[in-house]
């Protein structure tokens, strides 16, 4: 399946992170929170106003804004 932006993933879909920005303190922190190339994630929901996003990663729930999610490319694996 082709890679798409994390911000464009359908809610409830599981995906694997394919590309992840190398620069920027936000992305280093996201890595430290366990999000990096090869990690499996599920998009749980977006907030009522569409931003931020909530994802499940390594068994816990994490939020991030669309402005970061746009730079993360994922590949959908299966419907949850």
């Amino acid at each position: 399946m082709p890679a798409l932006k994390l911000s464009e993933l359908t809610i409830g879909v599981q995906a694997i992170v394919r590309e992840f920005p190398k620069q920027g303190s936000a992305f280093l922190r996201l890595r430290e929170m366990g999000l990096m190339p090869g990690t499996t994630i599920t998009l749980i929901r977006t907030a009522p106003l569409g931003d931020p996003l909530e994802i499940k990663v390594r068994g816990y729930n994490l939020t991030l804004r669309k402005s970061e999610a746009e730079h993360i490319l994922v590949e959908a694996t299966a419907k949850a």
Partner: protein
Amino acid sequence: MSADTRSPFGSRTPVYAFVGNPNCGKSTLFNALTGLKQKVGNYPGVTVEKKIGETYSQHGHPIKIIDLPGAYSLAARSPDEAVLRDVLLGRRADTPQPDRIVCILDASNLERNLYLVHQILDLGRPVILVLNMMDLAAKAGLEIRVARLEKELGIPVVPCEAANGKGIVELRLAMSRADLPLAKHAWEIPIPIAPAVSELAASLQENDGKAPLSARAEALLLLTDQDTVRVMGSKPLHPRTSEIFRSWQKRWEGEGTDWAGSLVSSRYDAITHLCSRIVERKANVGPSVSDRIDQVVTHPLYGWLSLTAIMTLLFLSIFTFAEAPMNLIDDQTSALANWIKASVAAGDLRSLLTDGVIAGVGGVVKFLPQILILFFFVGLLESTGYMARAAFIMDRLMSRVGLNGRSFIPLLSSYACAIPGIMATRTIEDQKDRLTTILIAPLMSCSARLPVYLLLIAALLPNDHFSVWGKVGLMILMYALGTFGAFGFAWLFKRTLLKGEPPLMIMELPPYRLPRLRDIAFHMVERAWMFLKNAGTVILAISIVLWFLSAYPKAHDGATPAQQLEQSFAGRAGHALEPVIKPIGFDWEIGIGLIGSFVAREVFVSTMGVVFNTEASDDNTVPLRKAMANAKWPDGRPLFTPLVCLTLMIFYVFAMQCMSTLAVVKRETNSWRWPLFQTVYMTGTAWVVCFIVYQTGRTLGF
């Protein structure tokens, strides 16, 4: 038991550090071990809470425990994390370097929790692991082989359910061990980075005087340290070390090596490998209770409804439950004042005690019930996990002015009282966001403004002429003005004074948990005490000064209180203020009221009562309103025209007139600079807005 009961520390009390991610149950465990033997303060120079407690080993030897702030990583991004890093590395002169480290993990979320542990094991100090929330892990279908983990790492691992009191005895036992093995902690530093780490470690040892074991850890930290937070206690690097670091960075940049990223990845590789051997995932257990609650609570429609319902409940309980104790405090302070009046001869001492100390301190202590209830709710929201959901829902709106969702609850609390709101800003990681929130919080109309609004609305719209809707509309207008003003200033500050990194919203949504009332009670008492201790001295001092200003110099014998006040320093200050406030329609009498309001805004009502020689109370302002209606300028124009009442209300919306808030802001920002700035910008805004409104109104013929 034949265990060695001699302490390896001799007669010295060993120091243990409690370390862990936020939401891992660290505080519950700390409270369970230390009980009431806790000391809470601040680390000097930063507003990070310092908590030290005492407990006993199984053999009766005293043990000191430092409860370090919760953190996800040693690569500090917030002052909290910087303090954690510096204490563990022994960089802070004000805190002893811990002899042993107790790492607390949420067993249901092992991988991410192990990241911090992985960094800490680098430090080469004795570590005990506590797997907390084992029950929740089991419920989530995870089976953790504790013995296997112990064997893999070579250090004690204690399974635990702190919330149910399970595992505490075992932890105390582990902490009492005379010898603790060091961890088997071999992990592969990525090949392109490894030579740099050894070179940096050697230079750190040689030039910066670091111990051999921690030099490697420091070198690793240097590579991921985002250097955004330099807290007092971290020394700058030796030039030779930073030169080595820079040359490596250059080389990596040329090669396209992502040094920080690959370090993080290799740690997670090691963790994933470890977890694959110790965690067994039983059959999928379906959506958890938390997932189901979140489906409602963060739903596009029900999410808003539940947020509104919870906040309504919060405010209803503040106003319902605070009333009785507030009246009680009122009664008690006036009883005390009467008792002093009866037992102390009339004179300056009596007046100082009753009109200065008791009136001033009592006027502030009166708000303590509200403050306590707010602390209770904030604690409740935090410990159940709803706080993070509220931030999640509100983030989009808050981002419009450059803040993030975490500012929402502190700002909302400020509608009742800015003090707990400002104290709740500690959950905001970003320092500039936090400061912005502190600066705008007092613009939210707090409950001390309510009596002033009520008095002025009643004076502006006398009962018989106007419908109740006009009054409600005016009240809403005042709240709206404060709110829009606050967001406007947030927008301005985030673009100018406190411009920072693009705001983030990287936040964990922890599973919902039942609140632990014991922990919330601890938290409440701690906060209230902090407020009384810190604000108390300032309040006492300012109360005495304000009393002195209104009691001296003495008027002739037999003068009425109004005459005394007029010719006192305060009265003269009111007169001196008149040229400044005349353009916004206020005379010297109102000026005295503004000065008096510095104790707390509601004091305006009683000060006006003295100025106009009437007995005024919050409950019965009729005589005062009559006196105000009759008040005139020397040339016979009425003083309190509808326009002046409106302008005065607007002044109260914007002006900074609360010494307790200033004392708390000083404490939370560690300097008088910010409270001073706040006073100037808020009061300045008040004057400018009032000037525009008053002059426009005059021009239009009001």
